[in-house]
Each structure stands twice: as structure tokens, then as C-alpha cells.
């Protein structure tokens, strides 16, 4: 058995990592009042800390997070839809436009078209209308989702 009092580190080790200490220290503690008091103080603190009230959020975290995830998903879907509509329209302009020019060239119909009715302009206008409809449709579905969400709150 050691007669030397335990250091602060050993006192804490005794309280929280007892298996790391040798027998001589354990024996000293069993016979030393000063070290026992120091140990009991840490044990009291540990016990109070263990029983301390646990903090918790005063709001519904899961609903807030799920709403945000759903909004993020919809907004990324929304931008993807607009992007693909645009891409589709652009491809349509080129395909229909070139096809139209080819047909006009073959059938020698150039004189029938004045500038205002250029097939390219017609195709572009049609594509813009498609994109606009798609956009309005998306905005409307977003709005409906939002209303549904508000109603559930």
C-alpha cells in the first residue's frame, strides 16, 4: 500500500476509470480519509450531473425538417422540369424548323411565305407557348401543395 496521497488525476481516475489503477492505490483509498473525501466529492458531482434535466427543443423539429426537405425536392424538380421543357422546345425548334425548310425547298413554296409567317417564327412561338403552359402548370401545382400544407398546420 502506498502512503502517498492520490494526485488529482488519480482521484478522478479512481472515480471514472477505476480499472486503470493499481491495487496499491485502491488499498490506500480504503484507508485514507482525505482521499476518500476527495473521491466522494467527485462522485456527488457525477451523480448530480447524471440526474440533471436533459434539454429538449420547444418546437416540432421533425415537421420543420420534413417541410424543408419537401420544399427543396419540389423546387429542384421544378427547375429540372423547366430545364427539360426548354431543352425539348429548343430541339423541337431545330427539328421542325429544318424539316419545314426542307419541305418548303422541295415543294418550292417560298413565295407563299412572307416574312411574318416564316416557319421558324411560328415554331418558336409554339415552343414559347408550350414552355409558358408548363411553367404556369408548375406554379399552380406548387401553389396547391402550399395551400394543402397550410391547411394541415
Amino acid at each position, binding site marked *: 500500500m502506498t502512503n502517498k496521497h492520490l494526485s488529482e*488525476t488519480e482521484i478522478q481516475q479512481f472515480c471514472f476509470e477505476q480499472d486503470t489503477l493499481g491495487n496499491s492505490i485502491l488499498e490506500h483509498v480504503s484507508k485514507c480519509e482525505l482521499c476518500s473525501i476527495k473521491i*466522494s466529492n467527485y462522485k456527488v458531482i*457525477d451523480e448530480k450531473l447524471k440526474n440533471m434535466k436533459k434539454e429538449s427543443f420547444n*418546437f416540432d423539429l421533425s415537421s420543420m425538417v420534413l417541410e424543408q426537405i419537401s420544399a427543396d425536392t419540389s423546387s429542384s424538380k421544378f427547375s429540372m422540369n423547366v430545364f427539360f421543357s426548354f431543352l425539348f422546345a429548343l430541339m423541337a425548334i431545330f427539328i421542325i424548323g429544318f424539316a419545314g425548310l426542307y419541305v418548303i425547298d422541295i415543294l418550292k413554296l417560298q413565295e407563299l411565305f412572307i416574312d411574318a409567317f416564316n416557319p421558324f417564327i411560328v415554331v418558336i412561338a409554339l415552343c414559347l407557348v408550350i414552355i409558358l403552359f408548363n411553367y404556369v402548370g408548375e406554379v399552380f401545382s406548387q401553389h396547391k401543395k402550399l395551400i394543402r400544407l397550410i391547411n394541415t398546420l
Partner: protein
Amino acid sequence: MDSSDQIFQDRELVGKVLRSDTNAFARIIKATENLVAQILFKMIKNEDDRKDIAQDVYIKAYKNLSGFKFQSKLSTWIAQIAYNSCINFYHKRRTELYDDFLGSREEDDEIIRNEVADPESSDFQIEEEIQGKELKKILESEIEKLNPIYKTLITLFHNEELSYEEITSITQLPEGTVKNYLFRARKTLKTNLLKKYKEGEL
């Protein structure tokens, strides 16, 4: 529940979330938000900031869930995101977390030096001198005075009863550093309690 059961349950829940089951993610939030709250309450003082960070933690977790490798419990991984988010918050705000921290370490070193110089310094039995309820209150206020990292470590170890390994995984601090910080924090708490009593405040 032992850790293999926990990891099995985690795998099942993560699988469901990856198959777009948002209810499974709600279950993950419910199961882990208390641990996240413990970290956020100790690291962040302002309630609005806490609210923003709490949401941010789970959005990050959701976005990175496919990269979770099950090397730890899901709760530990989410707690790690929470702890890192708090540290990033301090970095962004350029708040003096580290200056305070260094200051408090110097004070602690002073306390420890004094203790080493006088190993037979008179401790008295805290419980006998201070009544239970009062001691709890004083301890709570003394914890609040600690540096946020000390507060968090004390809470994770004593209140949440996490192992050193789990705390190391959450904070990404070496185990020796975690033990050293815990030692300083406990020592500061004990010394301040005894000091308060000697100064006649209790």
C-alpha cells in the same frame, strides 16, 4: 439494445429513407433529436441560432445519408454533424470561442498547479455542506460558466453517459484530449463549488 442491434435498426431505417420514405427520416429525427439538443444547448446560447442549426443538421444528414458507412451508430454520426455545425457557426461568426477557451485553460492550469503544490488541500464533503437541491442549482450555474466545449463534453460523458470512444467520434478530438478536457472541467466545477462555499455564498 446492444450496438449490433442498433446498427441493424439503423441500416433498416437508412435503407427506407434512401427509398424515399420520409416517415423513416422523421423516426430518425425523433430518435436522435435529444442528443442533438444536448449538444446545441451547450454550444449555442441564442435560441434562434439553435433552431436554425438544428434544422441544418438534419438537412445535411438527409443529403449525406447515402454516404453513411455504419462505422458508428447513426445517432453518433448525426451528433458529429451537430457538433461540427456548431464549430462552423463559431468560425463563421468569428466568435471568440477559442480565445475564451484558451483563457479558461490558463485558469484551469492555475487551479491544477495550485492543487499539485498543495496535494493535501482541504476538501470537505460537498454533499454534507450543501443540501441536495441547492447543490444541483449551483452546479447548473457553474456548468453554464464553463467553455462551450467543456460543457458539451461534461454533458455527453456524465448526462448522456456516452463512452470515450463515442465522444471522440462526435468531436473528432483525440481520446487523450477528451480525457484532459473532462479532467479540467470536473476540476474547475469542484474547485468553484468549494470556493463558493468558502466565500460564504452558500
